[in-house]
């Protein structure tokens, strides 16, 4: 969805949240990899780094835990392979960057790390990275290859996602009352680990997660969270790790059910799938991020008729949408789920998608005053 573009924040006034013991372990992993590459090189063997594969084929669905899990297969990244040579170099370059960062006991954004490792390769006009996307991908590789987490590499992503509701949290020691956040709300940080973010007093009975900021603002203005005693969050499209980690902890530690209000389109369905089961890319973190009990409140394909919406809200499904919807229906965790199969089929039969905002055509506050309360009351949701 939205691209990460963030400012450099080298040495943010953030107390490194990672324990010395974890740092030691991470450093050992990085140095171990470096030593292996040196050993191979000096022995004049084509040096390589093994990186677990982050693809659908290397992802399995654990029925019992209702989570996506990463498989065992690894990708060997060789220096002497024209397709991999640059990535190999980047892997080592970023590993070195992480090592420097850990040793300095400072934290950096992904973009900061990209800039830290960016320079022209001597004797050429080529830069070490063509863009931040390249470095972000490699950093995820390092994360999996070192069997650690982004936080432990002293890295964080751009803040995305907002929270408001009947809860108090302590972020890096500062107490934040989420009931008094005005119109802007509390920006959910990238790192929501215990130790950095602790929960304080909480009266809320459930969490309502909406897809994006515009819908969230509507709910916040109508003081929905106050009326219904809940926590209101949004994740700017596909929620980043921080938001997912927070939702997961609210669900697990405070026992709050999580309801999702997302668009009626393949993308909305996919977001729900990621919140519930975890993503393919970050399957290795599913156990920390996924919420197997999450519930899909809407928008449902049947709502067009049920709510008596006008034709204007219809957005035609294009070929890519149709294809994507079929792919999602084939995911193993959706495959045996009859209500979901019916939902996707219904959407395909409709031939159009709908955004949450389409409910505004009924009435400005229809979604907060009628739609969501009715659904919750009727316990009408998909799991």
């Amino acid at each position, binding site marked *: 969805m939205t691209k990460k573009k963030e400012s450099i924040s080298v040495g943010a006034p953030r107390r490194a949240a990672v324990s010395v013991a974890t740092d030691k372990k991470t450093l050992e992993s*990085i*140095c171990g*990899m*470096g*030593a292996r*590459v*040196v050993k191979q*090189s*000096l022995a*004049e*063997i*084509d*040096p390589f780094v093994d990186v677990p594969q982050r693809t659908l084929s290397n992802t399995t669905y654990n029925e019992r835990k209702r989570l996506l899990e990463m498989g065992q297969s690894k990708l060997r990244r060789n*220096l*002497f392979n*024209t397709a991999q*040579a*640059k990535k*190999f*170099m980047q892997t*080592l*370059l970023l*590993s*070195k960057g992480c*090592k*420097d960062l850990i040793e300095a006991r400072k934290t950096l954004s992904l973009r900061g790390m990209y800039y830290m490792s960016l320079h022209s*390769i*001597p*004797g*050429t006009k*080529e830069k*070490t990275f063509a863009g931040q996307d390249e470095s972000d991908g490699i950093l995820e590789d390092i994360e999996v290859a070192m069997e650690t987490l982004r936080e432990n590499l002293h890295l964080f992503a751009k803040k995305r996602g907002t929270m408001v509701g009947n809860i108090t949290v302590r972020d890096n020691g500062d107490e934040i009352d989420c009931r008094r956040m005005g119109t802007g709300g509390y920006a959910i940080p990238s790192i929501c680990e215990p130790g950095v973010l602790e929960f304080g007093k909480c009266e809320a009975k459930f969490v309502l997660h909406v897809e994006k900021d515009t819908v969230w603002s509507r709910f916040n203005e109508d003081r929905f969270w106050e009326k219904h005693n809940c926590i209101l969050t949004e994740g700017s499209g596909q929620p980043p790790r921080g938001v997912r980690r927070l939702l997961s902890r609210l669900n697990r530690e405070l026992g709050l059910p999580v309801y999702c209000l997302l668009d009626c389109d393949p993308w909305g369905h996919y977001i729900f799938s990621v919140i519930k089961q975890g993503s393919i890319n970050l399957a290795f973190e599913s156990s920390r991020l996924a919420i197997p009990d999450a519930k899909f409140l809407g928008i449902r394909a049947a709502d067009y008729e049920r709510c008596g919406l006008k034709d204007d809200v219809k957005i035609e499904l294009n070929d890519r949408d149709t294809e994507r919807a079929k792919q999602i229906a084939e995911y193993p965790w959706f495959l045996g789920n009859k209500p979901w199969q019916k939902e996707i089929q219904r959407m395909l039969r409709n031939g159009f998608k709908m955004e949450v905002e389409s409910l505004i055509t009924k009435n400005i506050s229809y979604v907060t005053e009628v739609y969501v309360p009715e659904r919750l009351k009727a316990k009408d949701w998909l799991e």
Partner: protein
Amino acid sequence: MTTLESANGVAVTETKPKSAKVRRATAEEMGDRQRDIAVSEFFAKNRHLLGFDNPRKALLTTVKEAVDNSLDACEEAGILPSIHVEISQLGETRFKVTVRDNGPGIVRKQIEHVFGRLLYGSKFHRLKMSRGQQGIGISAAGMYGLMTTGQPLLIVSKIGKKHPSHEVVLKMDTSKNRADIVSETEHPEDDSLFPDGHGTQVTIELEGRHQKGRQSVDEYLEQTAIANPHASFTYVTPENERMEFPRGVEELPPEAKEIKPHPKGIELGTLIQMMERTERTQLGSFLQEEFCRVSPSVARELCERAGVTNRTWIKQVGHKEAEAVYKAIQEVRIMAPSTDCLVPIGTKALLSGLLKGVKAEFFSAATRPADVYRGNPFQIEVGIAFGGELPKDESARVIRFANRVPLLYQQSACCSFKSIVETNWRPYGLSQGRDALPEGPLVIMIHMASAWVPFTSESKEAVADYDEIRKEMRLALQEAGRKLGAYIKRRQRMKHETERRGIFERYIGETARACEAITGTPAQSVYDALMRLAKTKTEEADQSLDDEGQVLESHLESDESVVIVENRIAARQEVEPTLPLHEALAIHEPLSGAKPAAPRSAPALIGKVKPKVKPKAKPSDGNLFGM
């Protein structure tokens, strides 16, 4: 209904009653007007048949006919040809062409016949591989000159040191197909024209147009030099520039043997004509003596099949019997004609000719065994030049030769062109459109040697399309093409490997530095090790094996029909391929003015620097192949 006498005297019924009754001519009147047409008159009116269609072509044809005659004469007399061509511009469209050779010269009484009569010569009535065939060329050129400028032909000839040189001015009489002598002088002591003591010089003034580039005199001479490495040429252009095409081989090609016609190659009319003219009295001896490959048993078999005997008197053989003999010839198996009448250029000489004429990096050549079309033996040779400074994005350039004479016109009508188009060049690593020439930095040379080259017209511009000829051409092209394919594949792999190495080397430095920062191992040691590894990694692939499991390199380079010029491969990136073929070959020296010749940027100009030749055989002095 009226009956009218038509022009040809045949009665035609005319249905229009009102048409005027006009008696146009009587048979007698017409009979008075019917008479002989001199061949020369016919050709004067149909000069396009002889290659004088337009002023530009006329100039080229004139030079070509004279040079072809000179080369033929020199070779027949066993003299290494040295030929001097000079063209001077007299007016905007008027030129004077002078061609001088060191040939045997022409005896005085034959001069007016050789130069003044069409269809007069030594070459028509025999079957022998030579450039000229009909005896038309040079006389036609003289006639064209006379017709367009009114100026007569000037011939100077000397047959030996002790003989005087004769200067003869000739004027053709087209209606009689003979020449009138305008004036004649004898120069007993004058040797300035002929340092060897013998030779012939022809001067023709004509209407023409001079233009460089394709189908020019320059191109003709340059290609002639490629196909005749044993000859040397000097050319003084209308701009008074001097171009030299030095001799590449100091040995004359073996003389072609004259052969008798093969029975399978003649037509019924020719057979009857031969019977009328023969001095033999009996059919059997006629067949055995006038044809090749007819043994007594073959003659007997032919006669038996025709229902006559080999004792039958020739005079008693009528049309019916002749036809029976002709039919028998077609049915009986007769041994193919001997091929010692053919003198191919030869793979080595061909390569040496191409090497000095074309600035390519790769050369391969193929000479096919002789074959027969319509009873005429022939042999096909192909040379291919690739890469180097040849233009990359154009269609292949085709240079065609018949009996060592370049064919510059009517390329697409030529059998060789068709054979190139129908050959599939894609397996050899070249791109090729449908029904088109292959694309790329490529020159394809095709030579056909034959006692009788089947041209499509008298102007000798294209070889007729016989299945046998086309097949041989295709096989020769494929033979040379396969070697090119192996080379291109190797070159692509080399290029690929170089690129691969470049990619590795680019990232090795960064990797080594990162390794040092992580582990403390000095970057230099990791760097050195990885660079060594990069080299071996890419070298390994360099020497990958070809399909037959042989290392490609030694395979190609031990082949005698292949030459690879390494310094031109290296020069590819630096030198723009702008030098046209003829400039690459010739050395320009302005005759007047102290200004030095045009900058010689490329190092491989002929006679200056010998290109490095890959075959291990050391190039000896001026003789690349020890020929």
